[in-house]
């Protein structure tokens, strides 16, 4: 309450002051929170509700309890797709982040120590920074179509190249699951690396130069500098990137749907999409709910792992 309406007896009470402070905060947040609740939270809750129904797209949906989840548990197609998704969840962040970090380090500190500077990027690093970012600008669906052509067994770029070298290229996408997974992983990593290069370059650029100078004076080489100076100092950024990339990997939809034939392999979101297509909306939302909890569990675990004190500089 505004001061002039505040009763005398509570005006100087500490508990009242706290309450009053939050009133102020809540006053500002009410509208955005209401929007958030309406457009973000409520659809979530609705989806969770629908996952307990047999809704097939019509006007009626009957409550069926855990039937959809039971069906999912017994559906080997779901487990097959989840296996692919979880593999991506585990491998894609490792590959993408390691490469992203490597390129970012090369751009910020991989070069010669020219003109007495402690750190410098490799020659042409400002160009690389832009080039790496290119895939981010393209729509994922275009990326999928283009790479689909590159991987084509008969007329693709890769097998064309192999052919010239006298090697009979394998069927990348129309062949077995492992090759399909490798192709999918390649494209996912390729399309996300640029983002992490920029993210990590920014984090590395924020590290004070004197830390590097000190390391240099102590005789540390590039590898040593990276592992003992750079990596510990950008740890938080790496973890954020890790969570983000994990969710991206779990979410891989368009690339898989467009590029990989569904009979070779499919990720869980594609399996979900197919259930939507078949009009099994209740079942599809149940799969969506499982994915939601999986992403949340993944984020929580990664946030817990290696939680250390932040280094201030």
């Amino acid at each position, binding site marked *: 309450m505004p001061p002039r309406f505040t009763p005398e007896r509570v005006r100087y009470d500490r508990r009242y002051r706290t309450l009053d402070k939050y009133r102020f905060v809540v006053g500002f947040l009410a509208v955005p929170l209401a929007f958030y609740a309406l*457009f973000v939270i409520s659809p979530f809750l609705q989806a969770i509700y629908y996952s307990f129904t047999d*809704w097939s797209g019509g006007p009626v949906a009957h409550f069926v309890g855990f039937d959809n989840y039971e069906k999912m548990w017994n559906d080997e197609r779901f487990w097959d797709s989840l296996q692919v998704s979880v593999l991506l969840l585990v491998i894609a962040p490792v590959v993408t982040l390691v490469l992203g970090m490597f390129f970012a380090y090369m751009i910020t500190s991989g070069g010669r120590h020219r003109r007495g500077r402690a750190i410098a990027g490799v020659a042409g690093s400002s160009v690389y920074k832009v080039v790496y970012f290119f895939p981010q600008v393209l*729509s994922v*669906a*275009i990326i999928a179509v283009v790479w689909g052509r590159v991987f*084509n067994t*008969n007329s693709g770029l890769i097998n064309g190249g192999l052919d010239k070298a006298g090697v009979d290229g394998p069927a990348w996408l129309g062949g077995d699951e492992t090759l399909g997974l490798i192709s999918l992983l390649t494209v996912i990593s390729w399309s996300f690396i640029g983002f992490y290069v920029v993210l990590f370059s920014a984090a590395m650029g924020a590290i004070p130069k004197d830390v590097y100078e000190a390391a240099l004076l102590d005789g540390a080489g590039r590898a040593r500098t990276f592992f003992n100076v750079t990596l510990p100092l950008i740890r938080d950024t790496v973890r954020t990137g890790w969570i983000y990339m994990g969710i991206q990997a779990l979410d891989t939809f*368009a690339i898989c749907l467009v590029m990989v034939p569904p009979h070779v392999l499919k990720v869980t979101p594609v399996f*979900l999409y197919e259930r939507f297509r078949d009009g099994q909306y209740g079942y599809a939302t149940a799969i969506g709910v499982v994915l939601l909890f999986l992403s949340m569990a993944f984020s929580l675990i990664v946030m817990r792992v290696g939680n250390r004190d932040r280094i201030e500089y």
Partner: protein
Amino acid sequence: MGSTSVNRRDVMKRAAAAGLLAVPAVGALSSCASGGGEENKAEKGDKSKKNPLGVKEDAGLTVYVFNGGYGDKYAQFVTDMYAKKYPESDPNQKPTEKIATQVQPKIVRGKPTADVVNNSGADQMNPGKLVHNKQVADLSEVLDAPSWDDPDVTVRETLVPVVEQMGRFGGRECYQLNISLTVYGNWYSKKLLEDGLDSSYPKTWDEMLAVCKKAKAKGIHGWSYPGGHPRYMFFSMYAMFAQRGGRDVTTAMDYLEPNAWKHEAVKEVFEAWEELVAKKYVLTGFDGNEAHTEMQTAWTKEGKCVFVPNGSWVENEARDTTPKDFAMTVGATPSLDSGDKMPFGTLYSPAGEPYIVPAKAKNRQGGLEWLRMMYSKEAALNLFNEIGSMPVVKGAIDGQKLPSGTASAQAAIKAAGENIVIPQFMDWYNELFREDFNNMIHKFMQGQIGPKQAMDTMQKASDRIMQDPDITKVKKA
């Protein structure tokens, strides 16, 4: 059936779909769909002798046509007919390769923009589900109506019986109408087989293996497999199941009977094909969405293989790459041996290119009328001239000069007589074919699994569908 490819517009759509379906948005997607229960008032006019279906003359009409191997010109002919009869209706036709993506969401919301839909191609809507959700109209009204050419004869009487049979989903109602007859089987070049290999069409599996061996000696593959579309193998396999074990085997598959896919006959057919794979007679290496056209080009233009599993649309689809003297021919599937229950010549030949009318279509009567026009002699003949496939209208192409593929298809139908087999489960339980068979046969054709695992996989899938409460079962009448 036929070609699917991704163009730029689809890419954008898919990107949008990708955005929509990303996990956090699943709820957002569902939140909008539960509303909207109000009845859509269909436009109706007065019935008369000249207008037996009661079409409202100025109601607009929208036709969605799958733009695949057959293109959509044949349908435009009918749409033009419609425009001529109802000039005020200004009918409009939309060709698309993505039927489900473009049409289904609006049907689900109860506000279809389409009045007639050619539900075909790789992205077709699941017809069984549409029927179950009462989202498609009963088309018996068309069949009962007087035909376009002769008011004394009903449309039903002008069509081959298989059309109505295939439109039924367990009841008396008819929910989809097919327009052409498709002949599935082993397609080959008569010239290559007879002149190049000095052989005649193999009537038994032993002869088939012999032809393949002969071809291998000449450096070509006897068989081919379009890896991007494994389901094509079914086109050459299905008649063999029936041929080997009789109709009981295929009926058991249709009704999801226990152990339907574990029949001895199924095993023997799989074993026969396994030999083909094991001896490396099969040309592979086609993947992606264009696999079937790549395969067809390797077959017609490059002469790399003798037989392709295919359907009668192939003659039209591969027209650009087919040499003049190719002599494209379809053969019925070979017999395994004298123990077969059905004779050589048993043919997998359903009516193809299904059309449906959404139950809540704004101009439902117009949609029905459009189908009645499709079954006119004029449109049927045009269908044949345009895409070279046989119309289901009786006698529509009598006296026409047929190209070799179509001529051979017609001869095959004649030779089959009563022995025509149709896998109804493809319409009733589409995913059993589109997903499970597709996934399984891909591994099979790569030699990753053998007949036993193939049968187990299919039986497991069939049982899964039997137990799935979300899928309505068609019971034996």
